[in-house]
């Protein structure tokens, strides 16, 4: 773990009986960055976060925050703010009461409760009981609780779930400011576009194991850009493109994605073959493409034989 690493996961393994939830996972979250933590449902993201926060024990390996286990942090709420899906609220308490309890437990000034309620736009609901809250309001309250101690590190599990567009935009801007101010954020999310817009780095896991980690540009580049070709002469064009060094894959809509060839080269091959083109465009890879490619999620469904090919 380098001094600039806020979070360090080393060879972390978590097993529940015979089920392997996290498999020798290693990654770091540097200070001053937002790190997206991605993976399909059941990939082990929440379990990793729980172990990191001392809520679950590791079978083997290490999960350190600021150089040591969470349990050894002095005044942990002043160091780390966490909002996990598993943390709940007593339905009979008001938002302010919940935060006051957390303040007392964490040794924080109770005045912080009103400050974070305002920060998260919950000030009008301070005296409302949690039982009447929507999912989005509970998310805001969880975020408010995470911010109580003005922490240096945020660990957020699906924080954008249930937030309205304004809430998502606020969260994105807040996390960016937080990281730019020197803090570190580890954020898991299924809303890949949100992660793509705010994260500097991503860690992708699947079945508990690391698939890849790096900057978003590294990931999307690795996933590969492609040239999309739609043509009635694909039977002729496809072998010609492959002879020219291209890798050709059929897309679900009947077009083909050509990799390893520049768009100009694809156009020249088509011209040489006298192929008619209905579409020729460069497709840039998104974080979602990269995620799907890396995790095998959303693989192309098998062709339906009863659906006729589109005629030119």
């Amino acid at each position, binding site marked *: 773990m380098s001094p600039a690493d806020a979070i360090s996961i080393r060879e972390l393994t978590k097993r529940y009986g015979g089920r392997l939830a996290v498999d020798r996972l290693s990654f770091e979250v540097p200070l001053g960055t937002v790190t997206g933590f991605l993976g399909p449902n059941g990939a082990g993201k929440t379990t990793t976060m729980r172990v990191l926060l001392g809520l679950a024990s590791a079978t083997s390996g290490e999960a350190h925050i600021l150089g040591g286990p969470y349990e050894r942090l002095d005044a942990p709420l002043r160091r780390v703010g966490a909002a996990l899906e598993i943390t709940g609220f007593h339905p009979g*308490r008001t938002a302010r009461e919940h935060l006051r309890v957390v303040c007392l437990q964490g040794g924080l000034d109770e005045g912080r409760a009103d400050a974070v309620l305002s920060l998260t736009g919950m000030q009008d609901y301070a005296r409302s009981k949690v039982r009447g809250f929507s999912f989005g309001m509970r998310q805001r309250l969880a975020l408010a609780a995470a911010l109580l101690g003005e922490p240096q590190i945020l660990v957020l599990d699906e924080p954008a779930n249930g937030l309205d567009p304004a809430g998502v935009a606020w969260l994105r801007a807040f996390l960016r400011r937080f990281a730019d101010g020197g803090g570190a954020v580890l954020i898991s999310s299924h809303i890949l576009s949100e992660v793509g817009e705010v994260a500097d780095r991503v860690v992708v896991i699947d079945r508990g194991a690391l698939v890849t980690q790096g900057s978003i540009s590294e990931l999307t580049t690795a996933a590969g850009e492609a040239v999309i070709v739609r043509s009635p002469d694909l039977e002729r064009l496809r072998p010609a493109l492959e002879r020219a060094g291209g890798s050709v894959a059929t897309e679900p809509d009947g077009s083909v994605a050509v990799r390893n060839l520049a768009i100009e080269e694809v156009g020249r091959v088509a011209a040489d073959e006298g192929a008619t083109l209905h579409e020729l465009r460069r497709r840039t890879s998104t974080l979602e493409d990269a995620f799907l490619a890396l995790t095998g999620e959303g693989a192309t469904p098998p062709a339906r034989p009863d659906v006729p090919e589109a005629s030119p």
Partner: protein
Amino acid sequence: MKRLVHAELLKVGTTRLWIGLAIGGAALVAVASFAVLAVAGSAQGIASGLGAITSVADVQKLVWSGAAMSFFAVVLAATMATGEFRYGTIGATYLATPRRADVIASKLLAAIPLGAAFGLVGGALPLAIGLMWFAVKGEALPFGSGVPIAVAEVVLQCAYGAALAVCVGAAIRSQLVAILGLLGWSFVVEPLASALVPDIKPWTPTTGVPGAFGAPDPHVFGHAAAAALMVLYVLGALGIAVYLERRRDV
């Protein structure tokens, strides 16, 4: 630890459960007190061992009927621990205080005064009702140093029940299982075991040892020895709860 105990008391104070249990317990004790006063000295009362209230010892029996309040103190204390798991607030609690032994110890330290407060209601209410009952009849309720001692004994029993219950709740986590388990232990397991092996009866933690207080019959333990045993039982329950909780995932 002081702020953790304060936090536990705030948790209880910001829900309505304690109010419901306090009112329910007080109502039960009041009904029981009126029933005792109504039948005491009557043919029916004498037949069931309730003679007329003419001495301090008789008033003590009336006050001891308030020990029924301990059931409500036990439910409240068990819920202080199990409610955190039921509603998922234990995650926030352990994030703020990762040392789980401190959390359970603070719950114990908060449960004791809460149990004692329930006990004070349980002990004082029959006395107040008795005073009014006798005043209405134009008589004076017999009073002596034994009466406040009886109230203190009810307070002690309720505080002890709450202390044990909060530890059992932390160890078991499930609200229903913890409460039913405590009731089953007190009303089935201990009486059955005591019937099978009478020698263990004075040693049993929920009926035997506390019986040194709030009962007219002489007990094998003196008050000091019984109190020491009660402390040991609570510390034992605390130790088990901490041992189990430190090894479990949330």
